[in-house]
């Protein structure tokens, strides 16, 4: 349950998460490094863990916690980071993935929102940017991407929890990732972690039409959901965002897919249907363990199906 002084069976402050990232980089110096990709609106660092065995490789991107209040996702990301690092050289699958590709992992995508949810309002979901002409604060960063921006399933009301923002990429947290992904140029899979009601989804969200890669993405997602269920029996619903949950424009994986990142997936981790965002911390490890099986399945598929 523990690695050094870090307790994975607990929710942690942003500072504690940041320290654990440093510890991980120090513990695995030849494999893990911390890369800064920008700053949040309130000037908190956006730090990514890079897992690399060296060289100029294609890569897989993982992120968590774009919606601040979904604490089990940030916790799962940190557990996953430790799992990747400790499995390299021990687990043949993760070893062969990292011998061919890099992995980037952003455990806290919305640091200002995370701190705000810890200190002021547990239900906070958005960023903390100031909206000109409104007393309401923040933008839903998962409606702020340049993919069907401002369309159905996003609100133009700054006080709404799904406010899309004044323009695409208006949120510095979103823009930082966009710039990083574009400048890297070789991201082959992009997986974003949310938590609510056990779903594994792929594009599109802004439209209910099928994507060109629907069959393959559906097959990979079904396989990943089966792997996940094999551990604790957690059942996931699988399909395109639009038909599985609701139409949502400006979402992360619609943008990544539009950039040519075929393996674009979004998870909604377990809430068990009873707790919503308030999943007891005792469920962090089971959630992370089962999610890992699905993540590994998607990463293996990415490795075995180069494009």
């Amino acid at each position, binding site marked *: 349950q523990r690695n050094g002084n870090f*307790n994975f*069976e*607990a*929710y942690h402050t942003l500072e504690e998460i940041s320290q654990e990232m440093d510890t991980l980089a120090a513990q695995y110096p030849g494999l893990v490094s911390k890369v800064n990709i920008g700053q949040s609106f309130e000037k908190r660092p956006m730090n990514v863990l890079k897992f690399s065995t060296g060289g100029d490789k294609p890569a897989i991107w993982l992120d968590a916690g774009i919606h601040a209040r979904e604490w089990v996702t940030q916790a799962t990301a940190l557990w996953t980071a430790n799992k990747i690092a400790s499995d390299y050289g021990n687990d043949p699958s993760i070893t062969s993935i990292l011998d061919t590709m890099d992995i980037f992992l952003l455990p806290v995508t919305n640091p200002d929102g995370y701190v705000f949810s810890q*200190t*002021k*309002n*547990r*239900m906070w979901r958005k960023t903390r940017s100031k909206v000109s002409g409104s007393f309401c604060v923040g933008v839903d960063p998962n409606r702020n991407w340049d993919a069907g921006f401002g369309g159905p399933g996003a609100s133009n009301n700054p*006080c709404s*929890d799904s406010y899309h923002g004044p323009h695409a990429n208006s949120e510095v947290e979103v823009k930082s990732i966009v710039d990083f992904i574009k400048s890297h140029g070789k991201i082959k899979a992009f997986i974003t972690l949310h938590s*609510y*009601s056990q779903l594994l989804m792929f594009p599109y969200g802004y439209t209910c039409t099928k994507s060109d890669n629907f069959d393959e993405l559906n097959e990979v997602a079904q396989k990943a959901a089966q792997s996940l269920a094999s551990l604790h029996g957690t059942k996931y619903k699988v399909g395109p965002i639009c038909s599985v*949950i*609701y*139409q949502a424009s400006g979402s992360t994986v619609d943008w990544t897919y539009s950039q040519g990142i075929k393996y674009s997936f979004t998870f909604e981790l377990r809430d068990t*249907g*009873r*707790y*919503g*965002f*308030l999943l*007891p*911390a*005792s469920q962090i490890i089971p959630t992370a363990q089962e999610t890992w099986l699905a993540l590994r399945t998607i990463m293996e598929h990415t490795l075995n199906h180069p494009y």
Partner: protein
Amino acid sequence: QETFVGDQVLEITPRNEEQIKHLVELEAEEHLQLDFWKLPTIPGETAHVRVPFVSIQAVKVFLESQGIAYSTMIEDVQVLLDKENEEMLLNRRR
């Protein structure tokens, strides 16, 4: 720190498009301060909404008047938050 004493999370199951429309109208009522955790979009699929204590009666009356099925998913949000805080303090001491 904002508290959520007496807030409930309702699980609502709209039967048809008309009931979904009613729920969308409900969401637009800013004075109710509803926080939709899962939006209503597909008939038969559940929607989840956190209802502040002061709006509970109005929301339940509305749902019942429209014949929209619902149940209570979380009785009191603050009770869960208090448990979460206790857990965090305990873990920090450990």
